[in-house]
């Protein structure tokens, strides 16, 4: 029995403690502003602790249930940043809709905590714990707008389907446990290496299905459009960004850390799901008239692209996927952030038509949105291009040339609907219903930074690429 070492889990402990404090602050002070400030400070503090305790190499804690490595640290840091930005964007939106209450902040913090646990899990139980903590917080967040029928319906759907997916995952894990006799990923991998069996493939199918649901890739994508569309935009903003990082982390932990000996099996499953996601996501997105729904389908396609990086099964592929998910979070924040920013009391700027002629009224906002859209389409010089480039490079390097060709063809189809947003903003006459941004100047500045980030990271992609590559190399054996 090793002595209890709490250092690797310090950020988690910190966030948990502060989340409880936020709960109390709200109960006693009735001032949501305080909760807001405290939440942001908590996330910043967690970032500082993560940075200070970061080191190359893997450190296990709690008898191997918990692991702290550089990949986890980077993903956590990006998650905090995404949460900070999402909360900041949402402030005005929430207060106009009577949702600017303590619960929101507590739920966000618990969701972040869930993600952190998922990211650092090295044991089936920890992983499941984190996943459920995140999922339950998200279910509640979606239902936060109590008097909205759409939101309640979305929350119900999310809950039922999410529970089903968790069931899949648990079932798969239990089969793996029965086969290997351990819940610990390091021991599972050792046991799986001894020899594969049809039982392993059977368990793997369920694990992969559960993961696919959480990532939102086809054919387990049904919930994504409904939830993205139904949830209040501020919540969609949150769901669309940070949880993707955590989902990527558990894919890495389970499939690469835990089940790497079965790579031949899961590679094929991922390949099929990736192609389906690219197809369904991109084709269905063309037909949407609601921006949130369109972005939801585009998320499916992007997650398919992410899987392509993972299934390339090389350091280059993993780090490409990691780069992809980080930059995707950045772009997603920009896109949904714009929806939130342009919505005002009693008006949701969520239809594509609402963006008509934005350039005539607010050229800078249109430029920011255009940069984000072109980046999502994967056009240089924006960062989305390098995300696609590195994934494709890893694919071709691993000999999956045909997958790379399919991926670029669907990227072309994808470009169409992103370009349509640019077209609406630039080519069309302004809408009668003028979009009057409701947010404050600081939110506008943050949004501008977000858009410029997409450009600057595109001009200088090396640091982030190198960071991802380094994190993967030190974290994956």
């Amino acid at each position: 029995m090793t002595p209890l070492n709490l250092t690797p889990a310090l950020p988690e402990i910190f966030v948990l403690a502060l989340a409880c404090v936020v709960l109390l602050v709200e109960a006693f002070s009735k001032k949501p502003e305080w909760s807001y400030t405290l939440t942001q400070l908590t996330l910043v503090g967690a970032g500082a602790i993560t940075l200070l305790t970061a080191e190359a190499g893997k450190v296990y804690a709690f008898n191997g249930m918990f692991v702290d490595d550089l990949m986890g640290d980077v993903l956590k840091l990006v998650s905090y940043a995404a949460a900070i930005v999402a909360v900041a964007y949402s402030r005005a939106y929430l207060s106009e809709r009577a949702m600017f209450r303590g619960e929101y902040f507590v739920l966000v913090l618990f969701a972040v905590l869930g993600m952190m646990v998922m990211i650092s899990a090295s044991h089936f139980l920890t992983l499941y714990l984190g996943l459920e903590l995140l999922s339950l917080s998200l279910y509640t967040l979606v239902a936060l707008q109590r008097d909205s029928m759409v939101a309640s319906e979305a929350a119900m759907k999310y809950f039922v389907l999410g529970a089903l997916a968790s069931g899949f995952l648990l079932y798969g894990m239990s089969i793996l446990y029965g086969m290997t006799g351990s819940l610990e990923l390091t021991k599972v991998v050792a046991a799986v290496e001894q020899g594969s069996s049809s039982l392993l493939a059977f368990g793997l199918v369920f694990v992969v299905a559960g993961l696919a649901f959480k990532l939102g890739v086809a054919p387990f994508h049904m919930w994504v459009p409904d939830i993205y569309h139904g949830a209040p935009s501020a919540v969609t903003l949150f769901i669309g960004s940070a949880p993707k990082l955590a989902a990527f982390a558990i894919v890495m932990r389970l499939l690469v850390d835990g089940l790497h000996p079965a790579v031949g099996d899961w590679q094929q499953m991922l390949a099929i799901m990736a192609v389906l996601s690219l197809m369904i996501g991109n084709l269905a997105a063309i037909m949407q008239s609601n921006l949130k729904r369109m972005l939801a389908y585009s998320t499916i396609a992007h997650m398919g692209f992410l899987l392509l990086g993972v299934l390339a099964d090389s350091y280059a592929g993993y780090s490409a996927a990691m780069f992809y998910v980080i930059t995707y979070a950045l772009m997603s924040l920009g896109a949904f952030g714009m929806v939130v920013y342009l919505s005002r009391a009693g008006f949701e700027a969520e239809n594509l038509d609402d963006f008509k002629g934005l350039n005539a009224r607010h050229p800078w906002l249109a430029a920011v949105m255009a940069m984000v859209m072109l980046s999502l389409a994967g056009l240089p010089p924006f960062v989305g291009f390098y995300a696609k480039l590195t994934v494709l490079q890893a694919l071709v390097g691993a000999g999956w040339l045909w997958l790379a060709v399919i991926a670029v063809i669907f990227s072309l189809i994808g470009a169409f609907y992103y370009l349509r947003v640019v077209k609406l903003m630039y080519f069309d006459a302004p809408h009668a219903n003028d979009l009057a941004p409701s947010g404050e100047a600081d939110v506008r500045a943050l949004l501008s930074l977000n858009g410029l980030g997409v450009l600057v990271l595109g001009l200088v992609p090396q640091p982030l690429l190198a960071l991802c590559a380094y994190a993967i190399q030190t974290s994956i054996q």
Partner: protein
Amino acid sequence: MIEGIGILSLTIWVPIVAGLLILVTGGDRNADGQRAIALIGALLGFLVAIPLWTGFDASSAAMQFQEIAAWIPLINVHYHLGVDGISMPFILLNSFTTLLVVLAGWQVIQTKVGQYMAAFLIQSGLINGVFAALDGVLFYVFFEAMLIPLYLIIGVWGGPNRVYAAIKFFLYTLLGSLLMLVAVIYLFFESGGSFEILAWHKLPLGLTPQILLFVAFFFAFAVKVPMWPVHTWLPDAHVEAPTGGSVVLAAITLKVGAYGFLRFVLPIVPDASHELAGLMIALSLVAVVYIGLVALVQSDMKKLIAYSSIAHMGFVTLGFFLFQPLGIEGGLVQMISHGFVSGALFLCIGVMYDRLHSRQIADYGGVVNSMPRFAAFFMLFAMANAGLPATSGFVGEFMVILGAVKVNFWYAFAAALTLIFGAAYTLWMYKRVVFGPVANEKVAAMEDINSREFLVLGLLALCVLGLGLYPLPVTEVMHASVNNLLEHVAHSKLP
């Protein structure tokens, strides 16, 4: 080498910075200031490009004015620039055209002036980047990024059907370039982890990979050229684009496709090029003959010139795939000449459109009576388009036909038909628009060109005549590089 920022970097970044500067000066309130910045930016962009010509060593086929710096070391991408005799003239042509476009849009564009000027300047910088890039990824970044400003130019300032044209243009060209991206990545692995285009030139490749690479590059560049049958986006884009957009499209972006054939296809996959040369020549001849006939029946002047562009570019690709020094040099001269002539013709149509707001040939007639000075210029450019000797249009076509005779008489025969068709559609249009009785009182009321328009057309007229009467300086610059290229192509790369 010059210390600090090199000349090529300047030709790329001066226009881009000027464009961004315009964007930050705000909206239409400041239109005059924005025009001034645009003019200064374009002028500076042209001036910094001039040392490329004066300092160029024509006896060397090596890349000159090279700049190299690590950009994304992780995947071995470099910021590597350099020009040889093939690419250098196009940087000058592009910088020069940008200057003309800024002048041409001076009064015509009254809405979103800043964004219009900025789009052209940024696009100019990006295109210079395409011609100067020697790194595969860098090339690709410029190659695709240049679509964005042009998409906006067509879509925002274009004609009634502009949205359709803009999206068609974008998706068509994107389809081609995405396949090229896969080819670029494939070459990266084949060459052992290098994105250097020059290293790819020396890379041995089997015939099957060569053919697949050829197909991928073909899509990217043939769409841009555009070659028959992937040309259908061009007439739409030309008709809907504002005058400046048409000029840049015809004079520069089409050249990017042809340039790609010389920089990528011929040297990287020479065996596949030989293998498929017959097909390429056939497609080129179809463009020359069939598209020439299509041009004949157009009733819209812009569409007519657009089809004539396709026919002329057919000449260029024909010249390239003859694997003859005369053919390639003729193709290059034809590219430059076409840059001047088609740009000038679009500007002429723009001049008339600004006055009458119609591009239909039927709405005009007897323009010479109200606009004699304009008619003279228009005549010169129409003659150049028809390939009249002593104009630049003649030189390139003649060289290509001479090259074709050496290979196969019937190629030359088919290609020479363009001299008839070209004369037919251009001069017939000219006759209907400029001569004859004055069609209506609107035409009678048209004012002759002002001094700004005179300046723009006059500069182009000088170029057309200069290149037509004394093409030697231009061909001299290309000579060494073209011979070097042909040497590459002559050697099989099969392992």
